[in-house]
């Protein structure tokens, strides 16, 4: 049975000649899980908002949206609130009330459910989502992952027939994201809830989708089952940018396989099988040519025996924390939520003070810090006004040219996409001529394309002699950009090594590429490494 039938849908925002959505057609069957992908600004959010009447933006709409045989416009407010659930991107701003139980009951209160039903549903949802032990807590004190689960749970209390999610995991850490996606899969599989989800990170959800829709500039450029989507994409454009965002198994397959009709490996397990069946493994390891000898380099920052806590009676966040950053390197600090990563860099940048221990920053080193929320760097209404606050006005043009943000200078910071604001923030810091840059979660909420851009920018900065410290959850990004990595656990760095050794040696805390090639190749931590090794080894059964 069809839940949604979208016919020739076009949409343009008021005062804009450009079409945000252009002639979109697709159907959603009961029990489907539809994955919507595309670069930032391709119209994903706009499309999803069209499907939820309360959120539909002002503008010119053409075409029809049929929900269960009825035009969406004819649905009463109450019906559409109840039957179509919507979860947005930002976990914080969706929360309305101060207590977890109140947030859970909020939707049901609005629709005047009776008290016994509310009591039952809140309890049921809290148990299912593992929120029972925070049931009485303030919503402000939850972690990002818990907040997003709460948002999902709160929407599900109304028992919607379809659930629409707009990049729900982009603002939360990978482990919570995985948990979130698993719950979603469970809801779809066991409870038959139809799901439409847009995502940047396709690794987790791709093979589970019943249909993948790729949007490009407001048009559907591919719409097919996961195993056929690659073929369809390549038919239109051999080097479609979205290919770089696909799961690593698919990207490996895409490069190495000439015959595109074979069974497509959709997840890590199938990718491993694909490698083992098709390639030799005589050469296990890539010969490292460009290993930098770090020991000879001078340290620019050293931290010794740092102890830090937020509250007098609280527990120590950092315990006997030691770190030494060498001149000109890119160092990535990894670790789980709440392990103290952000705290550590805030101490280095001087925002927080340790109560014990010594932070030594060598002479002439200018340390600048890019916070987790880059918007906090901007306090004016235009990007350019903020840039002009710095002493170095002459450098504005040059810097914005290097980072490619000239066209954004007259915009309001809040109108920029995740990737754009990250670049603008970086530009602002560069105006202060930093010799050490600290970036806190620079890849949070940005797409694969913006990540690649950021990677290139950071590598170029390194060539100019800037030392860079990155705090991140994103193993793929850390792996592709950093020279050395450290794993923070329980208040200090428990493992530190050059990037290849670090990820190659970790069992679980590693990249998808390494998970896929584990046991077959050694230390192949990047997608590129696998490609190189496969090409070196050659195909099995080759003539």
């Amino acid at each position, binding site marked *: 049975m069809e839940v949604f039938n979208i016919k020739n849908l076009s949409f343009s925002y008021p005062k804009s000649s450009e079409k945000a959505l252009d002639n979109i057609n697709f159907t959603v069957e009961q029990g489907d899980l539809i994955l919507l992908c595309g670069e930032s600004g391709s119209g994903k959010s706009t499309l999803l908002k069209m499907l939820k009447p309360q959120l539909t933006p002002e503008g010119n709409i053409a075409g029809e949206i049929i929900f269960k045989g009825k035009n969406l416009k004819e649905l009463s*407010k109450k019906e559409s609130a109840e039957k179509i659930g919507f979860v947005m991107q930002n976990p914080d701003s969706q929360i*309305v009330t101060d207590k977890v139980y109140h947030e859970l*009951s909020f939707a049901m*209160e609005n629709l005047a459910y009776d008290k016994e039903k509310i009591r039952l549903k*809140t309890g049921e949802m809290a148990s299912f989502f593992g929120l029972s032990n925070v049931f009485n807590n303030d919503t402000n004190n939850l972690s990002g992952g818990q907040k997003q689960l709460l948002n999902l749970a709160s*929407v599900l209390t109304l028992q919607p027939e379809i659930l629409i999610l707009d990049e729900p995991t982009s603002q939360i850490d990978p482990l919570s994201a995985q948990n979130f996606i698993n719950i979603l899969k469970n809801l779809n599989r066991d409870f038959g809830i139809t799901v439409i989800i847009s995502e940047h990170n396709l690794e987790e959800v791709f093979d589970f989708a019943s249909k993948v829709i790729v949007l490009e500039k407001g048009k559907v450029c591919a719409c097919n089952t996961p195993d056929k989507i690659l073929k369809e994409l390549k038919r239109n454009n051999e080097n479609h940018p979205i290919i770089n965002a696909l799961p690593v198994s698919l990207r490996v397959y895409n490069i190495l396989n000439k015959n595109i009709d074979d069974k497509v490996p959709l997840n890590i397990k199938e990718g491993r099988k694909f490698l083992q069946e098709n390639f030799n493994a005589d050469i296990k390891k890539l010969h490292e040519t460009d290993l930098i000898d770090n020991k000879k380099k001078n340290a620019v920052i050293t931290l010794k025996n740092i102890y830090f806590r937020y509250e007098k009676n609280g527990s120590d966040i950092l315990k006997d924390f030691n770190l030494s950053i060498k001149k000109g390197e890119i160092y990535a600090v990894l670790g789980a939520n709440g392990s103290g990563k952000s705290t550590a860099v805030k101490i280095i940048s001087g925002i927080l003070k340790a109560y014990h221990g010594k932070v030594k920053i060598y002479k002439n080193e200018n340390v600048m810090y890019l916070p987790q929320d880059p918007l906090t760097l901007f306090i004016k209404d235009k990007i350019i006004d903020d840039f002009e606050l710095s002493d170095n006005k002459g450098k504005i043009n040059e810097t914005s040219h290097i980072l490619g943000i000239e066209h954004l200078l007259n915009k309001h910071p809040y109108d920029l996409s995740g990737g754009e604001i990250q670049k603008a923030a970086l530009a602002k810091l560069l105006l202060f001529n930093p010799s050490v840059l600290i970036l806190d979660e620079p890849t949070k909420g940005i797409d694969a394309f913006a990540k690649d851009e950021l990677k290139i920018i950071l590598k170029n900065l390194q060539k100019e002699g800037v030392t860079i410290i990155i705090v991140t959850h994103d193993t793929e990004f850390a792996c592709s950009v950093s020279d050395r990595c450290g794993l923070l656990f329980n208040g200090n760095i428990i493992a530190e090594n050059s990037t290849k050794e670090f990820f190659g040696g970790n069992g679980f805390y590693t990249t998808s590429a390494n998970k896929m090639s584990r046991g077959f190749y050694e230390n192949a931590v990047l997608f590129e490494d696998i490609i190189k090794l496969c090409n070196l080894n050659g195909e099995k059964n080759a003539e």
Partner: protein
Amino acid sequence: MKAFSNFHPVVIFIYFIAVFSVSMFIQNPVYLFISMTGSFLFLCVLNTIKTTIISFLKYIPFTVLITILNPLFSHNGATPLFFINDNAFTLEALIYGSVLALMILCVIFWFKCFNIIFNSEKILFLFGKISPKISLIFSMALHFIPNFSKYFNEVLSVQKKMKSNSKLKLYINCFSAVITHSFETSVDTADSMSARGHSTGKVTNFGRFRFKTNDFILLISIITLIILTYIAIVADNTKVVYYPVIIFSNSGISAFISYISFAVLCFLPGIYEIKEDLKWKYSISKI
């Protein structure tokens, strides 16, 4: 979890109104003394005895100050003790001052108890009975204010690292940036509210409270006790006149009943807590 806070919010609220109505407006030292000891006992049970005594000691200078200030400004009364700049420092004014001080102390202590027992959930529930909208706004404010100050501090700490010419300008800029941020997120919040069916019509106000038999018994007791207390008060049988001379009218059995009833009312929560505490300890020892 304190046993007394398990009662229904409406009952608890009525209890506090009853106690406050006597402690705040009736200037009779007997009532005030009963009320003071009652609140002291209750607070001891809610917190520890040690912290209660410490907080009591902290208020002593304040009490003394009020006691002395009253005769300095009010020169009524028939018994002058001594003169300051030809102004009489009278015994009556001194006693009235001490009664005032005791009254303020009573109110402070009962408010301390009220704060512990009456959390935001109960307040919201009560407001929700009157108007669900006010209740929701209150709840949203409780969510918004900590977020706002947290974000403000974040922006400020980051901006302080940038070289800025004036501190005042920096604060103003940061404040306006945080306001902008709040507006931006409130658009999302509004979306999230309407997506979940806000303002589609009738609403229910969900509170996790049920009116139990215990609540009913407590409610009846409170009403009975407060009526017994007020019979003497309304009949002026427990009236105290301070100026020009102190007249303490403690006439008859009705005043006695009134004092006893008020004492029972004030000691009720403290004794109830102790009883529940013992019950728990006893049940543990049986296991």
